[in-house]
Structure formats: structure tokens, C-alpha cells
């Protein structure tokens, strides 16, 4: 899985590409999250537009990132959630945990409304 990072209006957007299924993905995502926190970035949006598919292990990676951000006074929100990922979020009721957005500007703006 590839992770690219960019900033928009003070919010970090992590663009993920590939498959989110555990293994080395966990460590690379974890490292990205901790690096952001070290640099003072605690409001992030994870863009899943280019994620082909995800399994429950991959969902665990997102949960881990979310809890880490929350523990450090921040948040992690999801952007461009596919039908498959949305199904997993719904069945596991994690849709009540993660804030999801279909539009990047809305995702970024959601932090302003906090």
C-alpha cells in the first residue's frame, strides 16, 4: 500500500493507494500517523479513493490510527469510502465511530465546525 501526504487548509490528507489488508501496511500506516503527531498534525483525513479493497485487518489499522489520534487530542476522518468499505463499516457499526465524507472540501471543513 502506498501512502502520500498533503496539506489543505491546515488539515493533513493521507492518500492511500492499493489494498489495506494488514501485514506491512500496518507498520507503514502507524509510522505515518506517529510522524504526523510528532510534527504537530492531529487533524487528518484518510482518503480511501484509491483503495481497491480492505479486510477486517485493514479496518483494524484504521481503528488503530483513529484511537492514536484521539488519544493525542486529534481525530481521523474518512474520505471517499467505497461501497465495500461502507458495508464493512455498517455491519460492524463502525459507521458510528468514523466520520465519513464523499467530498474532500466537506471533510476538511468538518474540522472547522468542531
Amino acid at each position, binding site marked *: 500500500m502506498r501512502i502520500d501526504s498533503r496539506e489543505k487548509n491546515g488539515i493533513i490528507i493521507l492518500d492511500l493507494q492499493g489494498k489495506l*489488508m494488514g501485514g506491512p501496511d500496518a507498520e507503514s500506516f502507524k509510522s505515518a500517523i506517529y510522524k504526523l503527531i510528532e510534527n504537530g498534525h492531529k487533524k487528518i483525513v484518510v482518503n480511501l479513493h484509491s483503495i481497491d479493497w480492505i479486510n*477486517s485487518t485493514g479496518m483494524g489499522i484504521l*481503528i488503530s490510527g483513529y484511537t492514536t489520534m484521539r488519544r493525542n487530542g486529534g481525530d481521523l476522518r474518512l474520505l471517499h469510502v467505497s461501497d*465495500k468499505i461502507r458495508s464493512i463499516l455498517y455491519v*460492524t457499526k463502525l459507521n*458510528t465511530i468514523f466520520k465519513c465524507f464523499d467530498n474532500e472540501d466537506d471533510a476538511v471543513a468538518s474540522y472547522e465546525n468542531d
Partner: protein
Amino acid sequence: MSGTVVIEFPSDYKFLNIVDLVCGEVVQNLCVGHQAANEIAISVIEACTNAIEHGNRECPDENVRIVFSCKSDRICVEVGDCGKGFDYECYLRNIPEPTDINHIRGRGIYIMKNMMDTLDFEMVPGKGMKVKLEKLLKHKENDGGRKD
């Protein structure tokens, strides 16, 4: 459409891409709705993930075998590994609450149980574990809503 499709692959997560593709092709021929197709694919991927990680302990010399059996009113998928199995009856009685974010793992069986109509386990001594998934097929136009 009815028939059987069998695939077998080493215990490496990179092969899950192929599983997803095969699953998509099999399900496409069943004329099920989009949601049902997603649920079948997600569940099969979960079963394969468990087979690789827990059943075969990520050992590339041990294979995962999937049998897709398509019948007129249902699809049956068996995912087999070479492992020693686990106490699935105990696990099914104690499935962790999926919204507990202190647990970053442990949602695979919950997902399968809720996305498929039937989830069974069969331990064959000396031959490994089989996870059996079944989903009743509904005509595409009548694809129902998600299960509560």
C-alpha cells in the same frame, strides 16, 4: 447458472487480489444485486485472511483452497486450510463487540456471520479446517436491505 469453481493458492496475502477477482467473476454470473455481491466478496476475503493467518500461520508451503458452488438459489463457498483448527463454538459464543475500538482485531468472523446467511466450521482431523459460507440468492431487482 450452476457449477463449481475451485482455486488453490499458497498462504500469502498477495493472492487475495486473485481471490477478489475470481469472486467478482463468479458472483457476476449469478445476477445478484450489488450489495449481495459485495457481501459475498468481503466474506470470502475474510475467510481467506483467517485461513492464511491463523490456519496456515502464513506458511507459504501450505495452501488455501476455495470451492465456489453455485446453485439456483444459493452460493456456497468453502475455504479450507491445513491448520489444526480452533474452538469455533467457544469463539462464536464470545465474539467481541465490533464497536469496541480497544480491539483493533477480531471482526472477521463477525463480518462473515452478519453478511452471509450461513457460517459453519468443519474440522477434518489431519486435513485442516473448512469454513463454509452460504448466501441465498435474490433476484437483482429484489436485492434486500442489510441485515440488522
